[in-house]
């Protein structure tokens, strides 16, 4: 079913077909390396496309049910992920966020939010994208 959705999108947007294949290939290689978190910035480097374009393509994969998005809340000082949340609607309630590395509490000024995607099932993905 998921595979069909992805194929439908490729049929709907034939100009994106090669990009979708390229991204699928990247995600497969990440899974092979044991990584299931897809960072758009890293994928864009691999694909030699802009981060915005890759984010858009990842959204297509999410619509196909292959991946889910979440937001990493990162300490800018130590560059470490403090939290991952599915949406930011309750971001205010999370503040201030305790950072063990800095041994302090961070307000939005000391934080960065990064969009990442999590592969739902590496096995399924490889089957669908193969």
């Amino acid at each position, binding site marked *: 079913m998921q595979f069909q959705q992805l194929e439908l999108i490729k049929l709907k*947007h034939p*100009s*994106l077909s090669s*990009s979708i294949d390229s991204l699928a290939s990247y995600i497969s290689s990440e899974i092979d390396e044991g990584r299931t978190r897809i960072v758009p910035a890293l994928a864009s480097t691999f694909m030699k496309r*802009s*981060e*915005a*374009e890759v*984010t*858009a*393509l*990842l*959204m*297509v994969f999410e619509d196909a049910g292959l991946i889910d*998005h979440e*937001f990493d809340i990162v300490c*800018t000082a130590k560059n470490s992920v403090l939290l991952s949340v599915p*949406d*930011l*609607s309750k*971001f*205010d309630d999370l503040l201030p966020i305790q950072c063990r590395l800095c041994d302090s509490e961070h307000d*939005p*000024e000391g*934080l*960065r*939010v990064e*969009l990442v995607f999590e592969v739902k099932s590496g096995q399924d993905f490889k089957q669908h994208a193969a």
Partner: protein
Amino acid sequence: MPPKPRKLPQSFYEKFREMLDAAEKCTDPDLKKLILEAASRYYQADISLGLSAKDDRGIDRIMAMADSPTPTAPNGSPLTPTSTFYRFLEQALTLGTRGISKSALPRFIGFLVYAALIGLLTSSLLLNLGPQVTASAIVLLMLAGVMSIVLLLEIPKKVRPVIFEIILLLVVICFLGVSTYAVVKLLNVKPVLQHEVSDKAAPITKVEPPDLEARQWKTTIRADGFPAFEGQVKFGADQNFEAQGQFLVPTEALNERIECPAGLKGGWSYGSADHFVLRFQMHLTMFSDAGISKDQYLQCSSSLKPLASRVFSKACIFRSAVGCSASGLDIHLSPL
């Protein structure tokens, strides 16, 4: 009750803008639509009131961009050069606080604008450029400050951005106009009548210079190194002149002068085609004891003898129909 605005890290807002910029540049309509959709889903939707101009149709509007042949900004207005200009100014005027890019150029330009306005205000006061320049500088400086505050409060995103852009444009135009006026005034540039003279250039008004050869003139000449001269002068067609009259030689008594009968000779020529510049050369030809006492003559002699060999040469500009002046030379003429 409206939802409480959330304050997310600044980088999140920047990412949203990067997405929109990328969509703007994207030539593939399918991909462009997907980028806008992704921007809306992952960034704008979660930013809620925190980003920009989220009126009731906020998300609908951004989605409408994808179908529109004209790219639009997050606030729904067309992404025209004016919008780019607005965003650039936003970063400039807020000195980078409202960042649209990591470039330091807008911040630098903003700094220059503030420095120029303060410089304009200071120079208008110090150099006495006139109340108009001072008032304009104060008004513009205040406007720039108010706009900066307005931008920081994100008010333009809640009202009509186009109106704000127009106001910004007008402020910039006014600033450039006042600056140009101040610079022109500082340089004393008169485009209509500018004459190149060897001496310090001075502003002149649009008057007719006198026709020197037309008649005899009653004259007063004040020249460096000479006592003041009063008398009659005739400018000849051969570009020589002769003057008869008296030098007013100062005495030791305050405000007292001895009138020493004397004559002047010299040459003259126009230094410009429109006869505004007079090249003037003179020397003392004689002085006499006619009509003065012996004591007075002795005083005249002691003052004027050293001048007998001196030749005075200078160019001056006619500021009026009867007056020509330069640094160290002032000639006043009145018809006889």
